[in-house]
């Protein structure tokens, strides 16, 4: 039943995606050409990267609202070190370490002190962004090496290099989530921590590593972001966290944990990207764009639910999550 539901959800997103692509190709000038597709894919890179780990984190019934701030901090570190004259090849691993440290900080507060991750990451959302300002202040570092800025926007045919990176990492994440013991454990602990703990799942350890992975992924996204825009600033990526969470939820991941699939999330990221691109091309005003994004989010959940509610009419039945 659960699987059916998940499949139905993914099917729905897929149908929507195909529908929007067909509509846009036929009805929107400039949509269906190589360079636009390439922009479109490139534009979703950072969100896609962060959505990969966010999916795992939310399935584990936690949340990481600090991803965009981690991205900002990592950008700031990159800019600062670049200004200090370090070679970029040395800076990039340092950035990833910074991301890991941010994630570990979140993870330790959540697992060691038992604080709710929503509260913790609202705090680190401000803290990391603030550290980024402290690190780089009001400077914008723009003289980044063309070899890298070029790579970030380069593409094989219509497929950007960055998208290939997303694809590889998505493959890894999907295998971890859907085919390994760790993945099983993530679903189990997201659904019922206590039972998972009783079954010997190392709840704290897994959660800690999920947050670390989320941090690393955010800093990886920061590298793509910085090179893509050829600009390292402390306010890079402000507000991306909501876009990431929205994509993950649209992809059918349950905010209460224990449910969701990676393919669903990836399709949702793509769907949001395509809709945005097509609407902007069609000169739809920004306010309508926001409205449509919101509507899409609600409608995607509403559609299967309305059916379920209707069915429930004929047979009342208790449902909902059991007490925790």
């Amino acid at each position, binding site marked *: 039943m659960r699987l059916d539901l998940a499949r139905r959800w993914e099917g729905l997103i897929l149908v929507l995606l195909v529908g929007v692509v067909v509509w846009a190709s036929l009805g929107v000038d400039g949509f269906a050409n190589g360079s636009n597709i390439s922009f479109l894919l490139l534009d979703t890179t950072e969100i896609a990267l962060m959505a990969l780990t966010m999916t795992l984190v939310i399935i584990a019934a936690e949340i990481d*609202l600090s991803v965009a701030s981690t991205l900002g901090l990592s950008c700031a570190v990159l800019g600062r070190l670049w200004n200090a004259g370090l070679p970029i090849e040395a800076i990039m691993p340092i950035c990833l370490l910074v991301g890991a440290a941010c994630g570990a900080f979140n993870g330790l*507060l959540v697992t060691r*002190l*038992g*604080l*709710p991750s*929503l*509260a*913790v990451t*609202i*705090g*680190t*959302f*401000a*803290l*990391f*962004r*603030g*550290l980024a*300002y*402290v690190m780089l*202040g*009001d400077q914008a570092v723009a003289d980044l090496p063309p070899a890298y800025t070029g790579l970030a926007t380069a593409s094989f045919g219509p497929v950007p290099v960055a998208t290939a990176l997303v694809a590889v990492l998505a493959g890894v994440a999907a295998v971890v989530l859907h085919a390994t013991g760790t993945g099983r454990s993530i679903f189990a602990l997201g659904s019922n921590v206590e039972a998972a703990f009783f079954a010997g799942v190392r709840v704290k350890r897994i959660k800690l590593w999920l947050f670390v992975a989320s941090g690393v992924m955010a800093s990886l996204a920061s590298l793509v972001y910085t090179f893509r825009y050829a600009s390292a600033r402390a306010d890079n990526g402000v*507000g991306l966290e*909501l876009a990431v*969470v*929205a994509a993950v*939820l*649209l992809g059918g991941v*349950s*905010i*209460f944990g224990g449910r969701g699939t990676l393919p669903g999330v990836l399709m949702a990221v793509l769907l949001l990207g395509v809709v945005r691109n097509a609407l902007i091309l069609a000169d739809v*005003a*920004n*306010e*309508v*764009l*926001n*409205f*449509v*994004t*919101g*509507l*899409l*989010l*609600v409608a995607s*959940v*509403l559609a299967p*639910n*309305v059916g*379920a*509610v209707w069915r429930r009419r004929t047979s009342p039945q*208790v*449902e*909902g*999550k*059991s*007490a*925790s």
Partner: protein
Amino acid sequence: MTATATRTEAVRRGGGRRLVDRVARVRELGIVVALGVLFGVTGAVNPSFLTYASIRDILLNSAIVAMLAVGQTLVVVTRNVDLSVSSVVGLSAFGGALILADHPGVPVAVVVAGCVLLGALCGAVNGLLVGAAKVPALVATLGTLYAFRGIDYAWAGGRQVNAADMPEGFLSLGTRSVLGVPLLALTALVVLVVVGWMLGNLRSGRELYAIGSNPEAAVLAGIRVRRRIVAAFVANGALAGLAGVMWAARFGTVDATVATGKELDVVAAVVVGGVAIFGGSGTVYGAALGALLLSGITSALAVLRVDALAQTAINGALLLAAIALDRILALRVAAALRRRRFHDAT
């Protein structure tokens, strides 16, 4: 049998001890301590922080968020959340300001009532999505966060309403004081006390906690879950609507971006105030204290001449410190109570 008997009797021994237990169990204790520390330290460094004018400013600043936090608590205790409040505030602030500017004849009271109604309407949309159509609250309200803001933008179309366009009688609502207490803070306080009392002492209030604590059991207990959830969202929307007009009165300049991003502040206040994000427990008093703490931190940083670039970071660090402190206190108290029970029993 006798084991449990001695246990309860032991607890009953000595009313004084029981009182201490009660106080120690109050969830809001940690946050009160944090507030004390904040005001104490800041006041010691810069006594002007504790002057009447300064306290008045802090109260004014926190009033709106506190009111939103009170409304949010109603929703959060039912194991839901309303992220769209900031957009509702924006919509209501702009709507109210626009009417006042374009139709100076409309009485202020009517405008305020209209804004509350508008908010309630938005709340009803959320409530129906969550309660009736079973869309998870976070998804539904993230959606309406975008949607309501979209309506706001479309309505405003780049227009800004300035203080000069609004009647003095309205703007003074945002600044006037009654017996030395700002009217805004007073309104928030009244809302706080009324909602707090209702949550604690009405069947419907207690049912909200029951729903959040165990939704499945709430249905079995015959609680009309759907109706209660819709009501919680409507009430929260109405408060957001009220907060919206208050915003317009207080800040005078209103455009379509009002209160953008405030939802995180409100959720932060609620969480810092000890309201469990997965429902079932927490009080509006805690949430209001949380709002006070957050705006207290912001004001303190400005007063302490903290470097502007470092402010965001310190703000975040203090927020984390506050919730960590609260948590550690709670753990200590729980451990102490367990030990005490043990020593009483033996």
